[in-house]
């Protein structure tokens, strides 16, 4: 097991990349602590899988280095990296039994038979397939096959890291929850570094200690789920995380006041004037209906159980307000109040800090 460092890593699938668009991964530097549980979160096509394949050595990066501990593994083949990886769609060896499938990675590394048997037994218990160990893998259902793939990923104890590439896509929701909990338990028990790729924020936020959010080949923010929620570094993080996502409004900033469509909104601290597109962002749960403040045009109310979402518009921009259960919605309200402490200011999509803290 080792710390994983990505140093100035970039990758392009074209041999002679020209523009920005040719780079699947834009230059990035990241460090993954030994034994951490990480999630790589982003929409489809943002480079998550590319990054994962570079770590496991299935791809070699165009630029930069990958380090395991202090060892440069950038050009090492997959087999020499001692990494486990589980793919989006189940990969099983059809002609083998479930038991042989689980034992395959250990057998290829020449482990003694009794160690193999012990590991296979414990992994089979974990994925709940003890009763089907001697069945042939061909003809099992997709989620049984994916459980075998997961089991093969977890069967080796000495791996540097276990990488998961959206492994629960084909598993039905209930089983998904159960397997994720098991992965989490496994992580606590054995302390493997785990990197979990997903486009599902719930999966990422429940699995990981630290979430790395990617967008268009860039790492836009890495942090704890809480910090991503409270202080998104980029507007993409703001609206990608949270349901509904962060509200973003074009604004002008003058000191500690923001103006949205002519309405003054107090901020918690003064900001330095900045060039570029200025937006303020606020979570829907930091907004409440009011009699004065920002004009709000209510379109509809969605009751999602433990709270209600008011869908509407502010200055022509979609805007959501979350009202907790039990709290009345005042009839005919057309203004909203924003909690100054929870307003973020973004310039050209990147978060800026208030003046005194920045200084």
């Amino acid at each position, binding site marked *: 097991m080792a710390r994983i460092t990505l140093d100035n890593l970039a990758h392009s699938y074209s041999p002679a990349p020209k523009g920005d668009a040719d780079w699947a991964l834009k230059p990035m530097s990241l460090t993954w602590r030994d034994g951490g549980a990480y999630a790589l979160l982003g929409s489809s096509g943002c480079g998550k899988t590319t990054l994962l394949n570079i770590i496991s050595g299935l791809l070699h990066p165009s630029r930069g280095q990958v380090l395991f501990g202090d060892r440069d593994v950038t050009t090492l*083949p997959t087999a020499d990296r001692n990494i486990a990886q589980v793919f989006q769609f189940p990969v099983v*060896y059809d002609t083998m039994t479930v038991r042989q499938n689980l034992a395959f990675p250990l057998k290829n*590394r020449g482990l003694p038979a009794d160690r193999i048997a012990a590991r296979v037994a414990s992994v089979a218990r974990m994925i709940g397939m003890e009763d089907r160990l001697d069945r042939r893998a061909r003809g099992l259902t997709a989620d049984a096959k994916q459980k075998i793939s997961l089991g093969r990923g977890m069967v080796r104890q000495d791996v540097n890291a276990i990488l998961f590439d959206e492994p629960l896509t084909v598993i039905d929701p209930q089983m998904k929850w159960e397997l994720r909990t098991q992965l989490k338990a496994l992580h606590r028990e054995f302390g493997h570094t785990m990197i979990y790729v997903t486009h599902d924020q719930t999966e990422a936020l429940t699995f990981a200690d630290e979430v790395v959010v990617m967008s268009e080949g860039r790492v836009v923010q890495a942090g704890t789920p809480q910090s991503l929620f409270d202080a998104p570094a980029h507007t993409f993080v703001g609206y990608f995380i949270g349901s509904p996502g962060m509200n973003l409004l074009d604004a002008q900033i003058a000191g500690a006041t923001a103006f949205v469509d002519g309405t003054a909104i107090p901020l918690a601290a003064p900001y330095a004037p900045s060039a570029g597109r200025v937006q303020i962002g606020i979570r829907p749960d930091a907004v409440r209906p009011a009699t004065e403040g920002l004009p709000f045009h209510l379109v509809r109310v969605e009751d999602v159980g433990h709270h209600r979402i008011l869908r509407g518009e502010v200055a022509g921009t979609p805007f959501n307000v979350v009202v907790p259960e039990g709290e009345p919605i005042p009839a005919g309200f057309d203004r909203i109040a924003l909690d100054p402490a929870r307003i973020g200011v973004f310039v050209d999509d990147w978060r800026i800090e208030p003046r005194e803290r920045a200084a």
Partner: protein
Amino acid sequence: MMDKPVNNRAWFLVLPVLIVVAFSAVIPLMTVVNYSVQDTFGNNQFFWNGLGWFQEVLESDRIHAALGRQLLFSAIILAIEIPLGIFIALNMPKRGFWASLVLVLMALPLLIPWNVVGTIWQVFGRVDIGLLGHTLAAMGFDYNYVNDPVDAWATIIVMDVWHWTSLVALLCYAGLQSIPDAYYQAARIDQASRWGVFRYIELPKMGGVLLIAVLLRFMDSFMIYTEPFVVTGGGPGNATTFLSIDLVKMAIGQFDLGPAAAFSLIYFLVILLISWVFYTVMTAQRETP
């Protein structure tokens, strides 16, 4: 509960198919069956002969020998073409310009008619003017497919391999192309050897097309007629007289319609039986839980 109306007149809808199948298969086959149980002394007068012809065919040393040669030939063909086809498919480029070029080159032999293939090799192997035969002779080999049974066999086998290995390779190639990349990636993660990748990923995924390849190559080689007929004419002696060549000699050369018809039916049943055995063995092995 809804009662389903039972109406046997629906069977009439099957009638068109029955008629087509009758004319295309059943009636021609029954003609052969008709000849196989009768004898004639000319003048279109037939006598009932029961199973006499079948008995004669089954006891004939000449046909036993032809059957032996035929089985040996098919066994050699399968033993060479299947592994060679798999080997070629594994080494064909997967995509790009070279993949297209190789596909076209591989398909070329399949486009040549049987008798033309025979003619090509008949000339190619001749010691006096053929490139192959002349070169071998010049190199000091005592090669002559006209006189030497071993040389005749070698020529026909090499010709068949040249003609049909492409088919096996193309089928296997199609099977290989359908394997998602994730399988190869998983194998690398699991540290599988090259043999492991072949044995546990490529071979199982090729299973379906391989079954088709084996059946096609078996049936085709077991019925081979044109090429050996053109190259050796069944000779030297009877060395390359396979079942079809023998059958044609009997039916058209000697005009023994009865025995030839019985022979045809037995021939047909043998092919059916062996194909069924291949199919059963290969699918059973794939479907065992």
